[in-house]
């Protein structure tokens, strides 16, 4: 556990020491801020009409996970592949550190970084809460935020796993991004067309596990299992990639 934390802390610090953290944080927070502002304007306009809807922050969390598809590959591409390219992996693999501790530590470092951004965006529901009487449904807000963290976890797990297989950052980024696009959009298409196996495609489609349930405030065991098993799969692939590297 301590080793995982040491690796995670180094990666977390690395994000802030390099410009990546600020670039990613700036872009994500800017886009979300604009979306939130537009929404707030829309809600206030509607509030004077009978057709007014109950404001919530699901548009912010919905946009957040959409941005993750693009930003997580940029955040995970260097995690293991760069250690491999620079040769520093040799230092880590000869330190008293187990392979899975290294991989989980890398994942945790990325997770804590996005967690920091998530905490910052909690300001949006707080603002809405102040505008609305008798306040917003916090259980729904927190469920959608749990959804963001679960998507983050799965994306980062897969990203770290892929990063461990390559020594080139750009290759890592493209493979990761392609996989995310596939999981987020492409795999869902055949679900409505395929005569057989539609359920399988629907289950694999990541966006439905978020938009249809968690972002609406619904927690289902199936969704939790989906995100956590993708995380575990990614971390397992990463650890195995390191082990294969040793034996080769």
């Amino acid at each position: 556990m301590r080793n995982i934390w040491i690796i995670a802390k180094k990666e977390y610090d690395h994000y802030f020491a390099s410009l990546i953290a600020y670039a990613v944080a700036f872009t994500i927070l800017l886009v979300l801020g604009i979306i939130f502002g537009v929404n707030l304007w829309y809600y206030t306009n509607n509030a004077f009409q009978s057709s007014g809807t109950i404001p919530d922050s699901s548009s912010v969390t919905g946009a957040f996970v959409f941005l993750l598809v693009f930003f997580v590959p940029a955040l995970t591409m260097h995690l293991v592949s760069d250690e491999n390219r620079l040769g520093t992996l040799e230092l880590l693999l000869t330190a008293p550190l187990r392979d899975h501790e290294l991989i989980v530590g890398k994942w945790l470092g990325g997770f804590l970084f996005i967690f920091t951004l998530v905490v910052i965006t909690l300001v949006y529901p707080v603002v809405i809460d102040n505008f609305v009487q008798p306040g917003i449904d916090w259980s729904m807000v927190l469920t959608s935020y749990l959804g963001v963290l679960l998507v983050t976890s799965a994306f980062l797990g897969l990203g770290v796993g892929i990063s461990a297989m390559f020594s080139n950052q750009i290759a890592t980024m493209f493979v990761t991004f392609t996989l995310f696009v596939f999981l987020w959009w492409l795999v869902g298409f055949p679900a409505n067309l395929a005569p057989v196996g539609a359920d399988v495609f629907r289950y694999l489609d990541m966006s439905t596990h978020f938009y249809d349930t968690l972002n609406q405030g619904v927690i289902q065991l199936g969704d939790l299992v989906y995100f956590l098993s993708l995380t575990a799969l990614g971390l397992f692939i990463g650890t195995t990639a390191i082990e294969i590297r040793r034996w080769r």
Partner: protein
Amino acid sequence: MIKVKGLTKDYGARRAINNLTFDAEQGEIVGFLGPNGAGKTTTMRILSGYMPPTDGEAVVAGFDVVTDSIEVRRRVGYMPETVPLYRDMSVYDFLKFMADLRHLPNAEDRIDETLELVAMTDRADGYIGNLSKGMKQRIGLAQALLHRPEVLILDEPTIGLDPGQVVEVRELIKEIGKERTVLLSTHILSEAQNICDRVLIINKGKIVTEDTPENLQARLVGAERVILRIRGEQDDLPLLLKKVKGVEDVEPRSDGSVEFAFAPGRDVRPEVARALIKEGYDLLEMRLVGLSLEEIFLELTGSEGKGN
């Protein structure tokens, strides 16, 4: 401290090291000498817990490198050949990270001591990316020494350094080797001669021979060789030399001088000088060339070694 028996490693179909057996005691500096691709790095990677061997066993600091890899890694300090470091970290932050990974209780003190040992205290806050090659080498050594390991494994510790730095690093290794076991690899023969208590000559994954540097040289020196130069025409010189008793193997050299040999313990140089003067030649130079470790190496590793 290091016990290696029948160690073998295959990369696919290629056998990198083949049935290596050797050991190293505490307080001993053992040098691995061999051309590039001889299997030095592979052996060191196995001993440092980086990769498991295909066959055979290795015990380092009392633990098996395969079954107790983590215990071995706790007790070994390893500097990889290319000295990989995080360029965007400061020297201090990097060493702190490595110290944390080794769970050192008094990390700050250890880092300060180690920086002093490698004479890098004044660069502690500098970025590693801005350091010279020699300084990076010292930081690589520092991370290997942080936890005061029982066994120190250094892969080509002086490669790429300028002559002044080479001397410094060698002195440092000698100092460390007084109490600990040091295994270092090199393809510079004078280096092995200079710092090692024992040299293992390795080629094509096999140990060719193993001895102290002095013994190695003594074992192979069958004859002493002399290079001789005179003013003017040298054409008749070989004929004249052959007349002097004890002179063997006379060979004109491309630069106009002549090389000859004599049996050890029978120094014929005074006789040669007298003969030359008597015949009216102007003697410019007469130089003894002992068989170098380079030549020993070539002789021991055979024709394959010459390619390198």
